[in-house]
């Protein structure tokens, strides 16, 4: 990653803006901000006149921006990892490392880290689960109920907001939260709580196009994940895996919203894989695509992880492997055609989606450097595949409390399946919330380790046969959260060797850690907890170095960026989600954890090191 510094599109060479006595180390490759030209400095380097973009209005931004940064297009997106001043995509880059090469904030000075600004969305219902994007000095963040805010990333000042009209029908099962937007071609893209995709003018927030993916009143599904832009397409997944619904992935022309292709996650009659479904079960078999996938430009493969089959717990009406649920699919991004698939859990009866992030890593496996992908699953296991072919390279556990299988064999086969019996109460670990939640881990090329949470919790499942009702909940059973037999439920954040799963260190936490990790070249791993503490650990040792209370629990994705040579770390704060509610079954006091919806940005004080 480092070697790409300064070579990315839109980057400029160093520019000293904090002169005499200003001790902040200049961040390499930091792009000049549009409004820098509007600032005047006194001899101490402090801005005398700071005309904000908001004051000048969005037209000024539109007029100035092209002079300093190229439009976000596929070239910039493919090289996003080389633009540490920005956070251009949901995961920071297509590699999905959630890693920043910025090191101005580091182990040595993190005790000086201070909040610089906070922005309150005013929409606490559903918390704040997004990963903010930062593009050339402007932050774009979506809240629950599909509000989008463009902020001056240096000050938190709002430049514009977009309020999606409250829909007539909201599929209740999947919540009203939103996990982020995508930015490209002068537009901001968002999936909606009633299963539309909207594109907004990046400079003004005005709606440019809107398309319905599928009628939400009928499918009972919606979009909560951030879209992914690949080439000239905006690609979006869908929820619906716990409903009587057939899942898919859709691609739209990024400029017009015209539909380009759909990949059904469940093959239709006559298609390969269809015979892995019994009778008509394929029509209502789930297979959602509810977390953002990723793309390898060199192999020209789009990767997406597919969720569980429905009914979640009752599998006797869908005998067979149930392709392509609980699978990684690799698609031709131009056509949506399947290139290969790898199914992790054939015939899932535990609701263990493979829906989470797909991390692209070139790793030495058995003495040979392989192009791999790493995918943590709700089952509490991490799978490692060859990303060119889908070949199984290994799997390792994130959690100790796991009894759904005895283990995973050398060819990826599941050993000793513990399937809950129909009509009985079966104790299963991990719980439905997952051995890990969807919030994403981070990979640091500096340590070579993958950082991820693990959730030690269990449940009692009661399986029941259900008739599918189109678009309605289709769980096929119920569950109650339980503490593990080994002791109280808890969680941990650990560093792992991505190939062997060897644990390098472990940070224990009383409550489930449900926010994403951010790793940085400053030797830090950032995350937040349910009580509202945002904190940083030493990436080498797991030792806690710094913390700050943001007031509400953490469920979103922290990002880092730089403006005028100053590194920022920004985190969403806002409890309230499916799992936030579930936690109250094990920790009654969690019912009093306050909801919220704000962004906190941190930086070192000007003049410090």
């Amino acid at each position, binding site marked *: 990653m480092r070697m790409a510094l300064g070579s990315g599109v839109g980057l400029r060479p160093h520019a000293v803006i904090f002169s005499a006595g200003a001790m902040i180390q200049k961040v390499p490759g930091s792009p000049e901000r549009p409004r820098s030209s509007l600032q005047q400095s006194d001899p101490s380097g402090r801005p005398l006149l700071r005309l904000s973009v908001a004051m000048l209005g969005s037209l000024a931004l539109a007029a100035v921006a092209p002079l300093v940064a190229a439009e976000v297009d596929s070239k910039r997106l493919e090289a996003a990892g080389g633009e540490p001043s920005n956070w251009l995509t949901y995961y920071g880059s297509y590699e999905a490392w959630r890693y920043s090469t910025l090191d101005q904030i580091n182990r040595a000075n993190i005790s000086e880290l201070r909040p610089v600004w906070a922005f309150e969305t005013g929409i606490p219902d559903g918390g704040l689960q997004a990963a903010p994007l930062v593009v050339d000095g402007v932050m774009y963040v979506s809240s629950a109920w599909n509000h989008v805010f463009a902020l001056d990333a240096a000050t938190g000042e709002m430049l514009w907001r977009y309020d999606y009209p409250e829909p007539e029908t909201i599929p209740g099962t999947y919540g009203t939260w939103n996990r982020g937007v995508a930015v490209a071609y002068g537009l901001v893209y968002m999936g909606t709580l009633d299963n539309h995709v909207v594109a907004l003018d990046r400079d003004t927030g005005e709606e440019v196009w809107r398309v319905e993916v599928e009628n939400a009143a009928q499918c009972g599904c919606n979009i909560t994940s951030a879209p992914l832009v690949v080439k000239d397409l905006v690609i979006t997944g869908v929820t619906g895996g716990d409903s009587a619904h057939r899942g898919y992935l859709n691609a739209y022309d990024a400029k017009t*919203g015209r539909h380009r292709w759909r990949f059904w996650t469940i093959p239709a009659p006559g298609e390969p894989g269809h015979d892995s479904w019994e009778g008509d079960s394929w029509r209502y078999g789930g297979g959602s695509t509810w977390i953002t996938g990723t793309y390898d430009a060199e192999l020209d493969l789009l990767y997406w992880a597919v969720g569980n089959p429905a009914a979640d717990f009752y599998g006797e009406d869908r005998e067979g492997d149930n392709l392509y649920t609980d699978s990684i699919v690799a698609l031709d991004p131009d056509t949506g055609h399947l290139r290969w698939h790898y199914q992790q859990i054939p015939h899932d009866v535990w609701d263990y989606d493979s829906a989470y992030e797909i991390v692209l890593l070139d790793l030495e496996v058995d003495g040979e450097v392989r192009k791999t992908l790493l995918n943590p699953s709700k089952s509490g296991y991490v799978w490692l595949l060859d990303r060119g072919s889908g070949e199984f390279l290994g799997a390792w556990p994130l959690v100790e409390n796991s009894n759904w299988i005895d283990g995973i064999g050398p060819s990826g086969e599941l050993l000793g399946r513990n399937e809950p019996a129909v009509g009985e109460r079966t104790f299963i670990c991990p719980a439905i919330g997952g051995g890990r939640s969807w919030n994403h881990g981070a990979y640091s090329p500096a340590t070579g380790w993958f950082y991820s949470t693990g959730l030690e919790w269990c449940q009692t499942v009661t399986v029941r046969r259900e*008739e599918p009702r189109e678009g309605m909940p289709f769980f096929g059973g119920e569950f109650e959260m339980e503490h593990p037999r080994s002791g109280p439920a808890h969680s941990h954040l650990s560093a792992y060797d991505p190939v062997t799963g060897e644990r390098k260190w472990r940070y224990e936490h009383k409550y489930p850690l449900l926010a994403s990790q951010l790793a940085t070249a400053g030797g830090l791993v950032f995350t937040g907890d349910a009580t509202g503490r945002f904190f940083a650990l030493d990436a080498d040792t797991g030792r806690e170095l710094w913390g700050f209370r943001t007031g509400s629990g953490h469920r979103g994705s922290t990002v880092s960026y730089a403006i005028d040579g100053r590194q920022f770390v920004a985190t969403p704060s806002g409890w309230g989600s499916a799992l936030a509610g579930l936690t109250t079954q094990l920790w009654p006091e969690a019912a009093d954890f306050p909801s919220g919806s704000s962004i906190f940005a941190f930086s070192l004080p000007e003049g410090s090191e």
Partner: protein
Amino acid sequence: MIRATAGLLLVSSAWLNAEAIDVSDPGLIADGAKHFAQSCAVGYCHGSEGAAARGPALRSRAWDPHDLFRITAEGLPGTSMPGWRGVIPDTAIWAVTAYVLSLSTDPPSGPDAMITTGLAEEPTAPRTLSADAVRGRDLFFDLTRQRRCGVCHRIGALGTAIGPNLALAARSRSAEDLSLDILDPNRSIAFGFEQVELRLRSGETVRGVLAEETEVWIRVHDSAAVPPPLRSVRKADILDQAVVERSGMPDDLDDTYSPGEVAQIVAYLREVAGEGS
């Protein structure tokens, strides 16, 4: 969905005609427990037996029966709590109410358990469609087909109102007219559903049914794709515009539906004619 609703009616049939019900009745509570398990406990919402999940805990609390019924029936606007009226029958909502009351700190008993429901004496019987019309309805809304009538036409609570209201249109059109409307959409275009063609400064031409026009914007349902995206075009970006006497509807639906299927869709439209007006 409609079939399932009819099934639920049967489950709850014992409680029809009940203007006053006994919410402590074990049969009613058991009926409510079934509905609760499938539609309310469901995974991430209220949890098994109301133990709490994303939605609040419902057990071990105190409730007013009418408040509980109203919230269940109408939902809570501005939250994820949907209204269940129209999805399951009101009688089933009362059964759910009775079940949740049974979980409360002080479940009603004796005379306190007799609740005036205010329900109509006889719920409207579900409409019965002919077998052809049922098949036609399934084709109209078949989500396994990316091209289907429901993408652009709404009937009742389903589908999307981009094109004309066909339940209304079917009132004044013969079965033969309706078949031709489907297969040859340019033969006659419903009033107000002509397309506008916008030639933009960017060189692009956008053609679609007009959705909205303001001083600054023209919004059209771009007919170049299915589903049609709603495009917002600044008037300042338009070189010229014209009304085009071509339907926005695809003119190759004979590739999507066989003649027999078209007849079934027409049967459906004829039987629902007049609804939604």
